[in-house]
């Protein structure tokens, strides 16, 4: 077991891929069960990782390292801190749910479908455990491929258009990130005598910053392009509604719940601690975009005729909170942002599953096709209501903790923007409750809806853990924060502690927008 102990993270990352490859030999009829078993096994393994993680231990734990391309300083280095930990748990927790949730939805090319889902899990987990920025990049890019095929093959009518947009956006972002990575590795050689892509090495770089045409600002922008597309931050969000609407249910769930989190994770792991002055330079600009995203996303969500598109725009709004809190750079807001990422994973994942369930029954997602569903599907109504409340951040649910902390923490950095962002609390209730009312309340107007079957056992079984998470995270968030706090503190210290950092809550700066460079 010695090998297993020292390679726990590698095992966790590659187990799904291995399982997927073996799964190709499993008969098509059984492949869904095979995939579910693999995802559950991975979840079990992640619990082991969780139990090994020590709150007050070293910064990065369960480290593994092997040489890869030593001449370029590229290595295969894995390790986790609190920031990785909960995103890993989120991934392994949602994967079985997404897979079991697809049992009845996917009827064609079943084997390929589950192969892609499991390989996607490997790529996502890999990105969360990589401590080498190049390795991170490889996993980052690898994530795109399965998602691209999932939308392209099992997607809806407009899937080609959606995949093209998805591809274009992410490609541009990724290429800029790659350039930035090269530059950082090169700078490491300049300053320390050798190439390195080790993240912890790159934290030590001293780069020029403070104005627009400096290394920190430009490199920050390059990374931010990749991360902001993923988040997605207004105005780079328009791939999301199409990708979501066209993707099969599990694709939407994974896309919203985990892939979007890569953006936030990238900011926290890479952009912030490596480029503090870049962050400081663009802090206000990003907070402005985030505040716009919150309100804009909510308003546009309000007028959507399609439930899935509404949920997609709600993601733009919810992820706007994440960016706002991150850039406010207060421990409260940053922890809130992180928590909001987990919340969004759980709640929006649950929403997409619910939309999928109703779609499988009615083959439409038009809000106007429904009405009075509560009467025919009372259990569905109950679950849908709880998830809706989580999405509108009702206290007692997970959503509240995240939003409250983000807004509370951001107030210090910029009260005006925070006040604008806080109106999202109102509009969030408007679009969600209005949609809920039109779908669930009133008389049953369409005779197609009269005979809809309520949730079956399988559907209830996958929603139950999500409901449990919604309340557990809302009532006892300290369970999560206790393991997270040291890592967040380190990240913020790295960012704000460096000499020359001038952020909103630090020294006030007159010119902050990129246009006003000197």
């Amino acid at each position, binding site marked *: 077991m010695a090998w297993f102990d020292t390679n726990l993270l590698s095992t966790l990352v590659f187990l799904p891929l291995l399982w997927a490859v073996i799964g190709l030999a499993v008969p098509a009829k059984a492949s869904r069960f095979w995939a579910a078993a693999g995802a559950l096994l991975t979840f079990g393994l992640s619990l082991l990782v969780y139990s090994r993680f020590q709150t007050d231990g070293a910064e990065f734990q369960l480290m593994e390292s092997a040489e890869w391309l030593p001449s370029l300083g590229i290595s295969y280095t894995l390790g986790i801190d609190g920031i990785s930990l909960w995103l890993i748990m989120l991934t392994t927790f949602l994967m079985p749910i997404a897979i079991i949730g697809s049992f009845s939805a996917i009827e064609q090319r079943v084997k390929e479908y589950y192969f892609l889902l499991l390989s996607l899990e490997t790529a996502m987990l890999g990105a969360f455990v990589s401590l080498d920025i190049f390795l991170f990049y490889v996993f980052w*890019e*690898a994530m795109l491929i399965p998602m691209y095929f999932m939308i392209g093959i099992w997607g809806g009518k407009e899937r080609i258009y959606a995949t093209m947009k998805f591809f*274009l956006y992410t490609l541009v972002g990724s290429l800029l990130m790659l350039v930035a990575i090269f530059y950082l590795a090169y700078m490491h050689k300049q300053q320390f005598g050798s190439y390195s892509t080790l993240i912890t090495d790159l934290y030590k770089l001293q780069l020029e910053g403070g104005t627009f045409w400096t290394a920190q600002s430009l490199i920050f922008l390059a990374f931010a392009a990749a991360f902001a597309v993923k988040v997605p931050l207004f105005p780079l969000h*328009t791939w999301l509604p199409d990708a979501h609407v066209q993707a099969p249910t599990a694709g939407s769930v994974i896309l919203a719940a985990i892939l979007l989190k890569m953006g936030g994770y990238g900011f926290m792991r890479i952009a912030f601690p490596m480029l503090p002055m870049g962050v400081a330079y663009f802090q206000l600009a990003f907070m402005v975009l985030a505040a716009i995203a919150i309100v804009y996303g909510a308003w546009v969500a309000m007028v959507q005729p399609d439930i899935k598109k509404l949920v997609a725009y709600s993601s733009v709004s919810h992820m706007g909170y994440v960016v706002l809190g991150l850039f406010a750079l207060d421990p409260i807001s940053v922890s809130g942002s992180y928590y909001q990422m987990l919340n969004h994973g759980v709640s929006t994942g649950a929403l997409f599953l619910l939309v999928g369930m109703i779609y499988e029954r009615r083959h439409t997602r038009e809000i106007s096709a429904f009405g009075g569903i509560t009467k025919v599907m009372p259990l569905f109504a109950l679950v849908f209501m709880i998830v809706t409340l989580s999405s509108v951040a009702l*206290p007692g649910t997970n959503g509240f903790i995240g939003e409250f902390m983000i807004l509370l923490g951001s*107030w210090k950095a910029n009260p005006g923007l925070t006040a604008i962002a806080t109106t999202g609390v109102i509009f969030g209730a408007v679009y969600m409750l209005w949609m809920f009312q039109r779908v*669930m309340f009133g*008389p049953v107007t369409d005779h197609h809806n009269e005979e809809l079957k309520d949730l079956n056992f399988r559907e209830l079984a996958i929603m139950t853990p999500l409901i449990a998470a919604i309340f557990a995270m809302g009532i006892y968030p300290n369970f999560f924060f206790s393991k997270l706090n040291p890592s967040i503190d380190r990240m913020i210290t790295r960012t704000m502690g460096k000499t020359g950092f001038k952020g909103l809550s630090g020294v006030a700066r007159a010119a902050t927008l990129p246009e006003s460079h000197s």
Partner: protein
Amino acid sequence: MLALILLFPLLGFLINGIWYAFFQARPGQHSASSTVTGAVASLAIFASFAASVFFFLQLHGMSPESRVIEQTLFSWIDVGALKLDFALRLDSLSTLFTLVITGVGTLIHIYSIGYMSHDAAPGKFFTYLNLFCFAMLILVLGASLPVMFLGWEGVGLCSYLLIGFWYTDIEKAKAGKKAFIVNRIGDFCFLLGTFMIFWHFGTLDFAALRPLVVSGHAAAAAAGAVNVTTITAICLLLFGGCCGKSAQIPLYVWLPDAMAGPTPVSALIHAATMVTSGIYLLARLNFMYSLSSTALSVIAIVGTATAFFSATIAITQTDIKKVLAYSTVSQLGYMFVACGVGAYTAGVFHVITHAFFKALLFLGAGSVIHGMHEEQNIVKMGGLRGKMPQTFAVFAVGWIAICGIPPFSGFFSKDEILGQAFSSPHGGPVFWLFGLITAIMTAFYMTRMFSLTFLGKPRFDEKTLGAHAAHGAAHSHDNHGGHADVEEDDHSAPAGVHESPLIMTAPLMVLAALSALGGLLGLPHASWLEGWLEPVIPALHEAAGAAEGGGLEWVLMGVSVVAAAAGIFFALGLYKDLNRANALAKRFAWLHKATENKWYIDEIYEAIFVRPIQVLSGLLWKDVDVAFIDRIVVGFGRVSEFTGQTVRVIQTGSIQFYALMLVMGVLAAVGYLLYGMV
């Protein structure tokens, strides 16, 4: 063990909730009767009442300064500067509220057993009702703003669920949504106030906040540098929250619509408890509000305006519940006037007496509606005195109490407010005068309602009422079928009006007794309440108290009694003959129409806020997202031949090909990049 107070309603909620969701809700499953589900819920809330009494007695046994019981359940959020415990605190203020919530709550639960007996889903009703009590108790027991906010939004949720209880009627569902959203506007302000408090004082705990605020102010005063701008901003923002929850101008518009819910809900949530949360918050933070005369003035003005304005609307409403709803808004206005002139104790006093008599009036109205087979229009009633003698008697008590005739409870609390409005340094004769005019209008519209409902001759055909009723019931409860069988179940009253069963009238009698005697809590110059609340709400300005003594107080009291009596007699005279009333209405037709249509406030809000946002949102979507941003992106896409090729590939192929692609893609990318570097 304060959590005991919370535990019982939570248990009741879980028992009824799980039972309902899994064994009663689905088509084909049978609903449990209101007797069993109601008994569970009533027992739960009664146990909570017993616990509340126990803790009250415990507090009572302590010395006044040490009257605090605390319990920290767990650490809620501990991040950075935010150290937030999930803590409960009972003091002389919150204990009064727990008693009212659980006490009146128990009566309303019991009443509901009868009222909901024909409903198709009493299990769901009692689930929500217990959840409401749980949330309301958290609201008053929460030791910090966020814990309070948990209850604050929790009661909002229950209000939403219960207003839209008969959700198959889309109008009722809409009313619930409106309540939630309007409350969210208030909560937006509440949150901003919370943020300011946190960054200004570093804590959100009420007990920790008090010395910080008070000593900070004292220090500033000593240094001659008093600046209350921040305090004023905080106070006004939190008051914005109160405007939502306690239905004040400009956010009162949800409350009248909230009458779509079952009548016991109107009594419990929208009269006795939830809507008084704003008063509770002001009383809780009185140490802060008292520092800002600006904030106090705003509150007093808003309260006065709300009290007056909604009274004008109440005068012309014909729906018995709508009259009571506007009356509630108006009475809440009085309570805010009290707080606004610094007389928090008077506000709390009116909260308590109002809880008694308004719950009584609502439940009485429910009894009337029940007896009249879902008829709510008072113009179509009349002469119910003989048909429903018990309801008539208790309703009369509530009527006299709200009109402010001594020695009934409403007189004492309202008179206390009017007196304070006149003589407090924060008040003034203008507040008193408007309060007095409002009192006359109150007496008038309540008498009008009472007269139209119970006095005179019936204005309905009793024979057709049964047939009409079955139709009416089926209409309002159509999804719950059961209510339509009202006649079959109730053989004692085959058709026509009937008195309500004992399970409904008994709670009414208790409430009537409380409405009659509740004033004893706060007799002028011998107020038990004032002394009891002293540790939380310091006595208001000794000097003012002295100045008020002597003749003036008796004069004011005399004037308000005469005013109330005038209102009553005028209304009694006018509505003895409906033709005369109608003639009067015709003479002031435009005024009558305007108040009947609630001054068109809903329509104005719709035009100013709702429509523009909807139109703008549509534009943002179609013109910004789709037409602008997308066009740029897709423009790039069209140019790229490469993309087209890539996209086409996925249309064909087999699994082997994809798997190969996947691996090759990664390898190719890596290889290419490495090649480029070396």
